[in-house]
């Protein structure tokens, strides 16, 4: 997008000095803002709080797991810790992470629009999210919930006597907020692209968020219904899932995973989008196989809806049902491999610069690849029999969700931090935290593959003595990982106040947000309508870093 012109003539820099952060300082101007950029910042603050909260619960149960006996906390307390960790990390961190922060901030800018299609709905989304958050906090105050984040019935409906109702309400509302974000993305991408911005000129980050929006729209209503039915059965004893009341508990699993498998793509697709921006930028190279990455995103989004039964090979579904799900699941290997290989080959022949975001992005590829191949173990029906519901599964999905999504999230936050906040984070600290996170992560989750294969079931408060060594390694890793996250967050917060001011395009990156918008952007993003005349990622290799 080197050539960018205003409709009438040459592009002129914004006249006013003001940016979206500074034009009004009142609290009201923040809490009721309809500016997608401010809403992104609000979301960033909310999810950081939840991320830390979820992390604290993880630390607590990792402490319990230092010893084989269930001696540090009571069983009920331990069960609440892992349930809250799961509920908070999934519904309050992973699902909103990239779309609600980077997506909200960047989707309008990248398509050259002034805001999202429905700014009020966007604001509503944040408020609904916080209402959900209040419900989540109420769960904590009223003694927690101990059903696991999966809310399997009849445990959740007829047996648990914890705050299940509040917890499903929280998840329900959080799901709603994501639907509002999803609608906005879909409409914005369809209707508000700048002149010249054809579908195949869109940055892949847009494709990723668009596909995510579609999955959110199609999947989330189903989990909403499921959670609602849980509440109905729990409150009024209507037999839907509990066989003792005439229901069917396997039905619950079908409904739950019909959403929750696509939900892993809600969590990971936006991360793919982030990586597709960062790799070409710091390779100073055009992205390899643009259309293949774009279509692999769509095909993952679609295929993702037909594989939910791979969570149920040993739940009592029939052999043939299992076969269909196993077979279809295997096809996701292809689009995933396409992405990984295209990113890798983007480095080929480029001019690679190792900045913090690039380090995170490369860490992402490594960890996500491990997460992906271990998924093959679980998708193979016979092999899933011993592995299902063990720590192998725990390790597998943390590799995709933390090693994948959280790494991508941090990659993206570092990458666009100068744009969003207008300050540079200290590069050395950024890399340092990244390496700590990478090391801690591997030390935490590698041993879990082994202990899972040895037979340790997940959600265990106490375990046989011979597995202590591996569990201690895991807890040690989790401590390092926790320290890494804190270091990373501290470094970013510090830089927001005391960091060096960022130039308009510190990375020498392509894209409207870098080439046209100031850092931080003008309240209206653009002072005149940008016209796009080039494909995305038209790097020449001559771009230079602009940091002092």
């Amino acid at each position: 997008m080197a050539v960018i012109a205003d409709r009438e003539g040459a592009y002129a820099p914004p006249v006013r000095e003001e940016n979206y952060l500074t034009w009004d300082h009142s609290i009201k101007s923040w809490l009721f803002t309809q500016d997608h950029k401010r809403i992104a910042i609000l979301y960033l603050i909310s999810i950081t709080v939840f991320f830390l909260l979820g992390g604290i619960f993880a630390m607590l149960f990792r402490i319990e797991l230092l010893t084989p006996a269930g001696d540090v906390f009571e069983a009920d307390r331990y069960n609440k810790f892992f349930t809250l960790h799961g509920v908070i990390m999934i519904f309050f961190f992973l699902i909103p992470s990239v779309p609600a922060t980077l997506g909200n901030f960047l989707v309008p800018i990248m398509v050259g629009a002034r805001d999202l299609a429905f700014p009020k709905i966007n604001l509503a989304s944040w408020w609904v999210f916080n209402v959900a958050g209040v419900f989540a906090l109420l769960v904590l105050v009223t003694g927690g919930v101990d059903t696991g984040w999966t809310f399997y019935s009849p445990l959740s409906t007829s047996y648990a006597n914890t705050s299940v109702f509040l917890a499903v309400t929280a998840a329900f509302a959080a799901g709603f907020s994501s639907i509002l974000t999803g609608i906005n993305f879909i409409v914005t991408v369809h209707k508000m692209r700048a002149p010249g911005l054809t579908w195949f000129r869109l940055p892949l980050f847009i494709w990723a968020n668009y596909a995510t929006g579609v999955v959110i729209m199609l999947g989330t209503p189903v989990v909403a219904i499921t959670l609602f039915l849980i509440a109905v059965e729990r409150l009024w004893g209507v037999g839907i899932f509990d066989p003792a009341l005439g229901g069917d508990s396997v039905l619950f699993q079908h409904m739950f995973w019909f959403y929750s498998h696509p939900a892993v793509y809600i969590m990971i697709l936006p991360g793919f989008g982030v990586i597709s921006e960062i790799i070409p930028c710091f390779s100073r190279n055009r992205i390899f196989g643009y259309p293949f990455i774009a279509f692999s995103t769509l095909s993952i989004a679609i295929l993702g809806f037909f594989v939910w039964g791979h969570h149920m090979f040993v739940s009592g579904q029939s052999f043939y049902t299992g076969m269909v799900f196993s077979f279809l699941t295997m096809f996701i290997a292809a689009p995933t491999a396409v992405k990984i290989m295209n990113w890798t080959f983007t480095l080929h022949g480029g001019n690679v610069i190792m900045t913090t975001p690039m380090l995170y992005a490369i860490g992402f590829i490594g960890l996500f690849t491990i997460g992906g191949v271990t998924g093959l173990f679980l998708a193979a029906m016979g092999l899933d029999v011993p592995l299902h519901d063990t720590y192998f599964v725990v390790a597998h999905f943390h590799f995709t969700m933390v090693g994948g999504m959280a790494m991508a999230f941090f990659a993206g936050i570092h990458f666009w931090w100068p744009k969003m906040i207008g300050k540079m984070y200290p590069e050395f600290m950024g890399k340092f935290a990244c390496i700590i996170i990478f090391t801690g992560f591997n030390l935490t989750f590698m041993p879990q593959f082994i202990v899972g294969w040895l037979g340790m079931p997940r959600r265990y408060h106490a375990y046989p003595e011979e597995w202590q060594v591996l569990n201690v390694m895991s807890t040690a890793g989790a401590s390092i990982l926790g320290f890494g996250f804190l270091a990373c967050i501290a470094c970013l917060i510090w830089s927001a106040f005391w960091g060096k001011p960022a130039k308009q395009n510190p990375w020498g990156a392509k894209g409207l947000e870098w080439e046209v918008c100031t850092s931080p952007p003008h309240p209206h993003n653009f002072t005149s309508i940008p016209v796009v005349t080039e494909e995305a990622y038209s790097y020449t290799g001559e771009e230079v870093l602009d940091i002092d």
Partner: protein
Amino acid sequence: MLKYIFPEQASTFATRVDPMYYFLVIFSALVCVGIGGLIIYFAVRYRKIEGENRPSKALHSIALELTWTVIPGIGGIAIFAWGALLYNDFANAPEGALEIDVVGKQWMWKVQHANGMREVNDLHVPVGRPVKITMTSQDVLHDYYIPAFRVKHDVVPGKFTSIWFEATKTGEYHLFCAEYCGTEHSLMGGTVYVMEPEDYAQWLEGGPKTSPQESGQFLFEQRGCVTCHSGASGARGPNLMGVYGSTVTLGSGDEVVADEEYLRESIMQPALRVVDGFSPLMPSFSNQLTEEDVMDLVAYIKSLSAEEGAE
């Protein structure tokens, strides 16, 4: 040291599953090292050098794209096939397996052997003989899991599920509940004792003498099943002789094979599938029988077919 990485291998299924696992471990390691190596190589080989500049190159290559679409696709199908074959082994118990009943409840396993011997949490089985475990739950979902045998299956309330295995080594092995089931989930387990057949026979002798079949027969009379299922022509219910394993034609015209799960359903929810030629007047026993009672009744009905076959 090895036991920290390699789990005990104590069943025929374990010896069949493990090769696939270790094969995939090696395969995954190669994939990860390959991709990781390539990235590191590219990152170093094509690092930015001040003042020099490699102009941007090829956008894509159809040949490469096809390679990395087709190869994972074929690999995926191969892994699917291998996995499905293994599952087929796991799902189909051989004829003549020793039958054991298990009922799960928060937080214990109640086990009953063929001669009526009962135990809680632990499981005694003979070595070298297929064992089929029929399971159900009295409350929430559980999952019967014996890592050394590589078998597990959910234990579902309102339904029978089963696993089978053939132990290959005597010894003591862990038994776990693998499906989260509430407070003491992690304590819901015990030890599997694999014994020489003679030792097992001797161990069985220590137990009570009413077999599930006998208790089943007792219940069949006591609960009045016999009034409708007398076997006489013109009785209100169908003759149950030989029903187990046979193909039953339903009023809807469908046919079902009468396995344990069908028998269970016929007792607990008779109206769901009504036998052709009969009216749905059998009462549901779901509130009157415990899960153990149903197991016993099913064992008895199964024995009816055995007698028939002998005659």
